[in-house]
């Protein structure tokens, strides 16, 4: 008999529907007289989405990941990027998928590549600004392009100077958007969109915080499909309401009623970086041994915003209501948006050194009560794979058994599934001493 009750998420169908509609809307936008823009999952979608009229964006990383989840499509797209454009095969795997999609003039969700009206991007890792610069070139070179810089330092070094720098760039971005689209930014819409961004980012963090409970209400394989909505359009009413009104209360209810993600939970593991998207079945394998992957800085803070409180614990970043803030002007909206992104997105901290990654992950394994770590050394993304080996040493020093496997989030040519299965098998049975429970 299973140790805990378990069931699927009631809001799962809604999450699927929102994602499907997002890609469909982008495809059909021009038919409806709407604008289309390209950008990154981190590129503050509330700014272009505050333009007058109907606007739809395509965020590059989740699009690349969608292709990554389909090994046959993925290889074809990557070989187009490498063979026809001539790029290196060790560049970001999402990026190669994206470029390949344009080169082959295929939209992964059906039809021809839907050309955008403008690019609104931001930059922190080596690839982001260049990704869409080259995409624009591949697509013909005429597309208006704006990119702003958010690489201003880690969360604990953010002050007025850093916030001002990004806010000023956003004002320039607004000027750019109004010039190239002939439409105005609607301040009322902007304020609402920033408010939604806070809700999406803070309520996703609150949902993840519940995973400190035993048994964990969510497993990482499920969490991957949930955080992705925030990478698509976290400023939309639908996404913000999903996190706040559907997911958060449901996960809370699961904790209150001890509804587990893995019915026979007996071991909790910590993860890092994106998974190999085409091979998520690895997580189902772990479940047979009562293992739940319940915490990962990437999964929880790619869009989730966090604070470090006075006790030194990672806690969800306060919503605007919790801060007692009412946004009234464009300046308010931009400043609070930038402050939340720069101070709350702890996933950006490891961009500034191994000590940040070591420190944050040490806090997490303690708070989320992890027994071991399985680390995907992700050859597909330098941004999230930063300092993984130093982190491994730091976790081992805390007494945690750690296993690493090399792979690639979206390039199956760099992932040896059989070898990984065997490594996990040995780790689970020999190192952790676990036996199958399901």
């Amino acid at each position, binding site marked *: 008999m299973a140790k805990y009750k378990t069931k699927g998420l009631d809001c799962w169908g809604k999450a699927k529907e929102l994602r499907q509609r997002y890609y469909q809307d982008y495809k059909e936008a021009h038919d409806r007289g709407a604008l289309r823009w390209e950008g990154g999952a981190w590129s503050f979608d509330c700014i272009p989405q505050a333009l007058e009229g109907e606007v739809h964006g395509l965020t590059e990383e989740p699009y690349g990941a969608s292709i990554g989840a389909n090994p046959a499509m993925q290889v074809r797209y990557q070989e187009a990027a490498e063979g026809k454009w*001539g790029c290196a095969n060790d560049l970001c795997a999402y990026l190669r998928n994206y470029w390949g999609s344009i080169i082959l003039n295929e939209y992964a969700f059906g039809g021809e590549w839907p050309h955008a009206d403008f690019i609104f991007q931001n*930059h922190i890792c*080596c690839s982001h600004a260049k990704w869409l610069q*080259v995409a624009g070139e591949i697509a013909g070179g005429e597309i*208006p392009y704006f990119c702003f*810089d958010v*690489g201003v330092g880690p969360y604990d070094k953010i002050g007025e100077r850093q916030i001002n720098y990004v806010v000023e760039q956003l004002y320039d971005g607004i000027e750019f958007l109004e010039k190239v689209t002939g439409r105005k930014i609607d301040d009322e819409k902007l304020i609402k969109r920033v408010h939604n961004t806070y809700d999406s980012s803070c309520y996703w963090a609150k949902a993840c915080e519940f995973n400190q409970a035993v048994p964990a209400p969510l497993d990482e394989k499920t969490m991957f499909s949930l955080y992705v909505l925030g990478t698509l359009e976290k400023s939309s009413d639908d996404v913000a309401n999903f996190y706040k009104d559907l997911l958060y209360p449901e996960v809370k209810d699961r904790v209150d009623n001890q509804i587990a993600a893995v019915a026979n939970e007996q071991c909790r593991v910590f993860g890092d970086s994106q998974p190999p998207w085409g091979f998520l079945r690895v997580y189902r394998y772990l479940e047979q041994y009562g293992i739940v992957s319940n915490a990962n800085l990437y999964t929880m803070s790619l869009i989730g915003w966090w604070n470090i409180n006075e006790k030194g614990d990672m806690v969800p970043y306060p919503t605007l209501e919790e801060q007692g803030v009412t946004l009234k002007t464009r300046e308010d909206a931009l400043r609070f948006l930038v402050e939340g992104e720069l101070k709350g997105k702890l996933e950006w901290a490891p961009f500034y050194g191994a000590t940040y*990654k070591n420190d944050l992950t040490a806090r997490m394994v303690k708070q989320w009560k992890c027994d071991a770590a399985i680390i995907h050394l992700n050859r597909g993304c330098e941004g999230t794979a930063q300092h993984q080996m130093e982190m491994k040493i730091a976790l081992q020093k805390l007494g945690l058994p750690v296993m690493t496997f090399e792979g690639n989030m979206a390039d199956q040519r760099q992932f040896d599934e059989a070898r990984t299965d065997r490594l996990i098998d040995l780790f689970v049975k020999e190192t952790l001493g676990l036996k199958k429970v399901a």
Partner: protein
Amino acid sequence: MEASEILKQFQDVWENRHDYGRDWKKRKGGKVLGYFCTYAPEEVLYAADILPIRILGGHETPSLVTPHMFDMWCPFSRDCLNQGLQGKYDDYMDGLMETNCCLHPRQAFGAWIVNKPYLWSYWYVMPNAVRSPRSKPFLRGELEEFKKAIEEWTGKTITDEDLDRGIDIMNTNRRLMKQVYELRKQDNPPLTGAEAMTMVWASQLMDKREHNELLKQLLEALPNRKLDRDPGIRLMIIGSENDDRPFMEMVEDVLGGTFVIDDHCTGSRYFWDELTPEKDRLQAIANRYCDRIPCPGKDWGMEDISRKRFPHVLQLAKDYRAQGAILVQQKFCDPHELDIPSLRRYLEGNDIPCYFLEFEVTVPIGPFRIRVEAFLEQIKAEELFG
């Protein structure tokens, strides 16, 4: 002194950089600060009488590095970290800084600091959006904080006069190296590409006041130097960090080409742009680093997809009459990998034939010799029959 002797001194510093660093410390008693990327504001360091040294390749198998940095990171940054873990800088380097550069040296810096926690360390936030008008005031603020941190570290206040001295040392060095490069426009340049780039590597490793004195002597001696060699095909070398002298010597000594110009951060990109002095010294420094020819990682704009570096590279190729370009890239170097397909199309579209090579910690001279030889023959054939 003969030009060859001076150039040999540069090579000696490059080959025996740690001996030089130890000796400098003994002679001057100052602090030594390592940096990875050429966005480090050396003006401020010279103002504080600190010796800035660039961490460059050791070109030995990085045997200690894999437990700290797995092999998807660029060989240059793995090589740098390996030397740090080997303790090669332990007895003379006092600190290490990072300049918000690409993700690869960030790994090396991060692991180095974790494993050598006694080093003074600093993360200097060089903005990425160097073409945005917002970057210059932001960087000025960053420089203010950096200056304060350096003052606290050294216990010495940095005055405007100190900054003027730092600016003068750096600008003199840039001007003199550019004058040496100018001589490479000649039909038969008085120095090879390997020698010219070794001069630049030495400037990143030694006290620039000493380097400047040698440069002045070199500029006097070079006009009298006649190399007993046919320069052959005039080449440009372009790409990421490059301090692979054996490769350049192979092309120049064995295959008979000559590198007449480069676009590397270990070459012209490091010193090409001088600083324009102004009353607010820190603002002047900020302006120089935002306006310089950018690393590809920072070469993007605010209105369109254009790049600032490409027309500059083409102009260099034209000014120095390069007949072809070799594009070299450290394996896994994202900023250059992202630009190379476009740069190649751009140069070839402007009648500069290109050949691409991917570099590792150690360079496979044999296979590269065959490939470059074929490229040179292709250029010769085009000249004959094209």
